[in-house]
């Protein structure tokens, strides 16, 4: 399986994501600069975390209006899998690929700590490496991860199995509604999540609970 990582200026977990994809799949992803005219033919497009354009407008808002996102939208529509982590999640929301909004954490502070996640829907290409209801460890590091959606949208997300991960065991770090940590689009080929599975993929990280997301996606051995 081939993957590509989109890099906008100000992203800073691109190297972490590239390392995770390389370590899990054995193949380095293609690196796509935001001004590139094309995204190579891949099965997975990843938008990593960081502070695109400094988050000087709403987080992700400027990157979401970059021409490369038209290509991402078209690929997503054609069924290519798209993963956005942290700022990548914010960009996917601002780009209209995922519904809702990510607001400032209720603490009004940046938070970097480990949380527990419940795998809410294990029956997708992204989550098939986990079991339904499995509780995993995962770090978060963000200032604006407080997910919100209106009641109708929320009902659709919950009803259609589009909540991918939920903060579990009272570890919601940001005030997200329904403890939502990550969501799918309708077709479930686009996933956005705030936590950083790429930072928990090997013994050196103190655990590898994040690895199954990549190994499941990439069809590689866990």
């Amino acid at each position, binding site marked *: 399986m081939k993957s590509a990582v989109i890099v906008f200026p100000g992203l800073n977990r691109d*190297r972490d994501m590239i390392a995770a994809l390389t370590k899990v799949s054995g193949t380095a992803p293609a690196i796509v600069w935001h001004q590139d005219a094309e995204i190579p033919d891949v099965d997975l497009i990843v938008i990593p975390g960081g502070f695109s354009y*400094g988050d000087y407008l709403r987080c992700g808002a400027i990157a979401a209006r970059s021409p490369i996102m038209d290509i991402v939208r078209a690929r997503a529509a054609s069924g290519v899998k798209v993963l956005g982590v942290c700022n990548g999640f914010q960009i996917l929301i601002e780009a209209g690929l995922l519904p809702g909004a990510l607001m400032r954490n209720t603490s009004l*502070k*940046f938070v*970097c700590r480990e949380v527990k996640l419940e795998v809410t829907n294990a029956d997708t290409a992204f989550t098939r490496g986990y079991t339904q209801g499995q509780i995993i460890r995962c770090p978060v590091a963000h200032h604006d991860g407080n997910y919100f959606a209106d009641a109708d949208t929320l009902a659709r997300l919950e009803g259609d199995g589009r909540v991918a991960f939920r903060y579990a065991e009272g570890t919601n770090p940001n005030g997200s509604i329904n403890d939502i940590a990550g969501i799918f689009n309708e077709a479930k080929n686009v996933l956005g999540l705030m936590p950083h599975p790429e*930072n928990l993929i090997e013994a*050196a990280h103190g655990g590898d609970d994040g690895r199954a997301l990549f190994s499941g996606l990439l069809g590689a051995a866990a």
Partner: protein
Amino acid sequence: MTIPNDIVITPQLIADHGLKPEEYQKILDLIGREPTYTELGIFSAMWNEHCSYKSSKKWLKTLPTSGPRVIQGPGENAGVVDIGDGQAIVFKMESHNHPSFIEPYQGAGTGMGGILRDVFTMGARPVAAMNALRFGSPDHEKTRHLVSGVVAGIGGYGNAFGVPTVGGEVEFDERYNGNILVNAFAAGLADTDKIFYSKAEGVGLPVVYLGAKTGRDGVGGATMASAEFGDDIEEKRPTVQVGDPFTEKRLLEACLELMATGAVIAIQDMGAAGLTCSAVEMGAKGDLGIELDLDKVPVRETHMTPYEMMLSESQERMLMVLHPAKEAEARAVFVKWELDFATVGKTTDDLRFRVLFQGDEVANLPIKELGDEAPEYDRPWTPSVPAAPLAAGDVPQMDVADALLALMGSHQVSSRRWVYEQYDTLIQGNSMQRPGGDAGVIRVDGHPTKGLAFTSDVNPRYCEADPFEGGKQAVAEAWRNLTATGAEPLAATDNLNFGNPERPEIMSQLVHAIKGIGEACKALDFPIVSGNVSLYNETNGRGILPTPTIGGVGLLPDWSQMARIGFAAANQPILLIGGPAERGTHLGQSIYLRDLFGRRDGSAPHVDLAAERKAGDFVRGLIRSGVVTACHDLSDGGLGVGLAEMAIASGIGAAVTGIAGHDPVLEFFGEDQGRYLLTVNLDPQGDAIKALWDEARDKGIACAWIGSTGGTDLVLGGSRAVPVADLKAAHEGWFPTYMDGAAA
């Protein structure tokens, strides 16, 4: 040669520039005429304490700065130390004290920005950061505001830039009420054959300006940082710069890309005194003149004067000397990252610093005298008068369990989680030990086993009581913290924070602390490779506690063998290594006295450097032999607090015997130096541990089996059992409760 003066140079104007009458006379003698207003600003920028080290240089020269692994010592943007395999660690610590007090968010953020720039200017990608923060008394009206702003500012900048914070310090003391300390450390990795320096080479080469545009922010900042605070402090807010971590991140990537093209001959970041200091340093170091044309400088405001452009401290800017043949290639890199790139001058062979503006020459000064031949003072200092020892038998009593709970929940010992969870501690995916242990550890990206350890240490209480012993102790504690992870201490950076050096008793603190640092660095083969001096930390005539912060770096050949502080399992023997046979004896200047009895008396504990080295080398050897399951050095609060921290880190309790006939307060809260607590995976009745004891005895190192791990309580001698859960609640509770405003 005449340059017209539009602005009359009055004695008041000279004083406002922080120049003494005799310094102004030196300027007149040097250039043979009255300086222009712009030139006065340039002299003020170059000859202030912050840029010239004029009070401290004589003493800094006495520090050991070389060693077999040292590639670059002090004098460049950062120190460079060989870590083998063609790689080097590049690091420095620098203060941003004055701006952080005036405007905490921007002051602390731009402090981070400055130190990160110092590191990547040398061609290194930043891989670790630390912050040593000192605030006023918790019940002082400004403290919460300052803590909140400084921590958010560091996080706001460092998190966006993308460097993990792996350690640091936070302390409170009323002596910092009017002058907080924000000391920022950064380290980066580089290839030893691709280190970049600030020394310009070659005549007639382009001097290129890179990065953000120049505005009016920070004009006169370095001069402000070289003065005491008075009641007019609010008026100084405009001298604080505003940070832009997004531009800094792009500048990092663009600089590293540019360096890879081979276009860079010399590079200097624009920090204190901006364009002036960077241009003068590049020229002076290379024995070259520099000519700048200010009409070419990218500006973000209109009608900026030459004075403002030369003294602006706008952030995220670099000055480089480039190979002319590669200028186009270099420009393309900066266009890609959407950063300014402008050729603003050239190197010359006349050793003059010439500044042109709208067809006029607004400055023409001798570059060497501005830079590396700036004034130097041998300021008078009084003899050191160390505080008297406590009287024999002066041991104020308190129940040991009560005292332990009180200390664990005190502002001094409590967990700093509230602070470090606002920093990204795991970005880059290499953090092996995050804040909360003895030292932060990262693995060296791309190497299968190698790791680097980082720590920041100083005990200002000891430095106040005895600057010489305090200086020694700061170095020894840094060395000890690195050793406690199993790392070999490589080298250190010093950030010397003191009051007004024109007062002989303050100068005495500086002199004796440097002497102590030097003695310890020599004895421990732990050279100082970079550093920063921050003087005039005084408000209305009252100085801070003398605070020579030491940032230490160590090397782990195999990070999988490193030790952590948490007890690993039940039923493991606990060994106390180093120090006196009575385990604890020294209560002077302890937190037991200060925080439980409001006493600041007694002598600072003595550091026996030979014993320090012996015990440390022994402990490191044990860790590397694989028998050590946990290790922690003893510092504030002594044996009792050390044991509690090890228990809290894992939730496993311990029972420790007392020494019959010895005061338990001394035993458990004495702050004797050079000590480590270890647990080992050895049978306490077996031959292996006996061999360990024999070895320690032969080497003359105290190595006592003081108890065993297990259970859920911590039992210190004959005192009542304290549940680890209670210790943890106290330890975790203070900071969030305080910041919520409920405690003081």
